[in-house]
């Protein structure tokens, strides 16, 4: 019962944050509401007893991705930030149709899935130690691939940000 | 070694911290209203009027020549001459100021008035606790507030005061000697001499 009670506010916060991130007119407010939606997701993970996933979600999404988004806003659109165009588009029925199709698809998959008929699992125990062991034994290839991807991204960022080497003497430190 | 400078710096601040409890050189604060730093001889803030003897108004050296009023750059001295004359320290009759006001909110402590005074009547004081609650009237000092005894001047500026007092003693002695010589000299024909004496 407490679990279900806790689920409702988390879900409301996440949905409200996501909707606000789309509908608000001020870009910075949108970014901050998106950060709020991330925090709501983290709360959902925690409510499911996945401590590592929840805290990692906070650490990475709220602590790094949201900061990245706001940094981008400052550095690119910082100068002129008039309220954007109207939040609703001129032809809303296209969006409604697309959203309706997606929702129908998802509901169909959920209802026909076998996992609804399974008994609820005993308290899911995913201590960090077992996550670490799985990462190093069973999922080591995806881990290394992600590491390679991140290194490539880092190198790319450094190369893009690198300034021309100066022709004159190096600056004194 | 890396970080040696940081370690040296931290040792120095630690020495400051520990030394501030027992070494007076490591705690040089003067707790102002309770303790004050000793004054420096050449410090100056606002002018004051010097008087000899005990009576401030009778012994005032100022003769209202208004040189200081004319020389003051921000023109903060206001003098009105009196019609009654007063004898100075050698006995000669001099004029005196009826009103001598200095606006200390305007005074810029340049000391020009003290430099140009031929009678050593106005000198620079060292008081700085001059705040008042009233912006205008309380900062306009009058003759009675500006007058301070010669002993005070000697205390502030010992070397200058000894010079000035030495000269004044010399002058007084010479005048008295000349007056005594004149009194002892044989009397000239009475009528024109008496008229001249009378005028003096």
């Amino acid at each position, binding site marked *: 019962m407490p679990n279900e009670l806790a689920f409702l506010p988390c879900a409301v916060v996440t949905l409200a944050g996501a909707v606000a991130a789309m509908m608000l007119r*001020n870009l*910075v*407010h949108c970014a*901050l509401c998106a*950060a709020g939606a991330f*925090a709501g997701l*983290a709360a959902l993970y925690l409510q499911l007893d996945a*401590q*590592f996933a929840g*805290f*990692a979600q*906070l*650490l990475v999404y*709220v*602590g*790094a991705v*949201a*900061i990245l988004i*706001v*940094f981008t806003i*400052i550095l690119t659109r*910082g100068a002129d930030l008039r309220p954007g165009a109207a939040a609703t588009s001129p032809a809303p029925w296209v969006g409604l149709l697309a959203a309706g199709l997606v929702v129908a698809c998802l509901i169909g998959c959920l209802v026909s899935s076998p996992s609804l008929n399974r008994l609820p699992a005993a308290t899911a125990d995913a*201590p*960090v*130690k077992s996550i670490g062991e799985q990462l190093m034994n069973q999922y080591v290839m995806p881990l290394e691939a992600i590491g390679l991807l991140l290194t490539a991204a880092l190198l790319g960022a450094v190369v893009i940000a690198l300034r021309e080497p100066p022709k004159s003497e190096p600056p*004194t*430190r | *070694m*890396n*970080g040696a400078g*940081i370690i040296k*710096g*931290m040792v*120095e*601040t*630690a020495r*400051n*911290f520990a030394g*501030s*409890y027992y070494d007076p050189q*490591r*705690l*040089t*604060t003067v*707790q102002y209203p309770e303790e004050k730093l000793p004054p420096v001889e050449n410090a100056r803030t606002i002018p004051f009027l010097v008087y000899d003897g005990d009576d401030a108004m009778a012994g005032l050296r100022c003769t209202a020549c208004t040189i200081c009023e004319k020389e003051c750059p921000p023109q903060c001295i206001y003098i009105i001459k009196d019609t009654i004359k007063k004898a100075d320290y050698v006995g000669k009759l001099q004029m005196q100021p009826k009103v001598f006001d200095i606006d200390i909110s305007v005074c810029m402590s340049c000391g020009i008035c003290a430099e140009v005074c031929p009678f050593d009547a106005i000198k620079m004081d060292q008081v700085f606790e001059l705040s008042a609650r009233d912006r205008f009237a309380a900062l306009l000092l009058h003759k009675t507030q500006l007058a301070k005894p010669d002993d005070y001047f000697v205390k502030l500026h010992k070397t200058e005061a000894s010079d000035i007092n030495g000269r004044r003693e010399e002058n007084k002695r010479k005048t008295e000697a000349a007056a005594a010589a004149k009194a002892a000299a044989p009397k000239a024909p009475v009528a024109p001499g008496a008229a001249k004496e009378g005028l003096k």
Partner: protein
Amino acid sequence: MNGLDQVFVWLGHWLASWFPVPAQPLVLAVLAMAGIITVFGTCFALTTIVERKTLGRMQNRYGPNRVGPCGLLQPIADAVKMLIKEDIVPFSADKTLHYLAPLVLTVPIWLAFAVLPFGRNMSAVDLNAGILFFFAIGSASELAVFMAGWSSQNKYSLVGAMRAIAQMISYEVPLVLSTVPVLMLAGSLSLNDIVAAQGTFTYGGLARWNAFTPWGLAGLLLFLIAATAESNRSPFDLPEGESEIIAGYLTEYSGFKYALFFLGEYLGLFAVTGLAVTLFLGGWHAPFQWLEWAPSWFWFGVKFGALIFLFIWVRATLPRLRLDQLLNFSWRFLVPLSLINLLVAAVWWRTGAWKFAAEAPARWLLCAALIALPFHWLGRALRGPLPPPRKYTYAE
């Protein structure tokens, strides 16, 4: 011994026993929160006056000594001043963000105190992934800096906020990396387990604190440097230095909101100090076995106070770092050094299996050399070539 040690735990349970059983966990949690807020709020007030007086003594002057005996009532005077100041919000500022920024800064930091073990059985919540919670919460307060800088609609605030965020994310990497050896060797993310792993004694009763190992000492220094930078404290206080950028992202804040920012900064400092004590200095254990009779929360407090004094001492000594010096220091010195520290911790662990006569000093020397040489080389690389000795053309 046991009574005094567990007095707060006993008090909490006695107070909770007045409530019906289903509500007792909630009551215990509320009591723990009340305790933390009281203790660390008072600590904040005390630290402001102790810092000002200590800085004064280190700078050859008295600190504040007019209000109360030795100036001890100064925090009350400061609090009254902050409360009665007018709350000015710029006309074109974003009102919602301007209002929310101090809250978003302060609230997560109060949360971070929940996992710190202040004594035996005295952590408010015992999480399986305690350290991860701590760092996650800490990183949530960086958005507040952005909100403060942006909502002020002030170019200098924005530049200050950008610098502050750049500094904070740069120093989060060495902060987290320097704690990884501790987690590796303790085998758990839970702070209570980490403290328990430092609870055994060796050689004449000396405790096995992590700071008494070469990787622990290096880790402690790295952690303290990164912690100083994370809480925007001198010598890393470029974002809020008055001579640099007025007050950076704090420029448009006055009165109680400014006090909240100040509170958040100091609380962040207390939280990372508490974490440093827990991870590296043995938490609530005494340094020697024959000192274990003193209460555990007393030892925590003593170590905590010593680290706070160290922070104040460093503030009094070192000049401020420029932004590029700051970021270079983090990325080119601290991050490689913390990765090498990780390696050295692994070497230490492996050589724990050595069993010959002089194994302890040999292990220590080997691991210390493995850390000291990169420390030297990285430092040289960071400093670059020294300029030639100065030639004075006019003075003799």
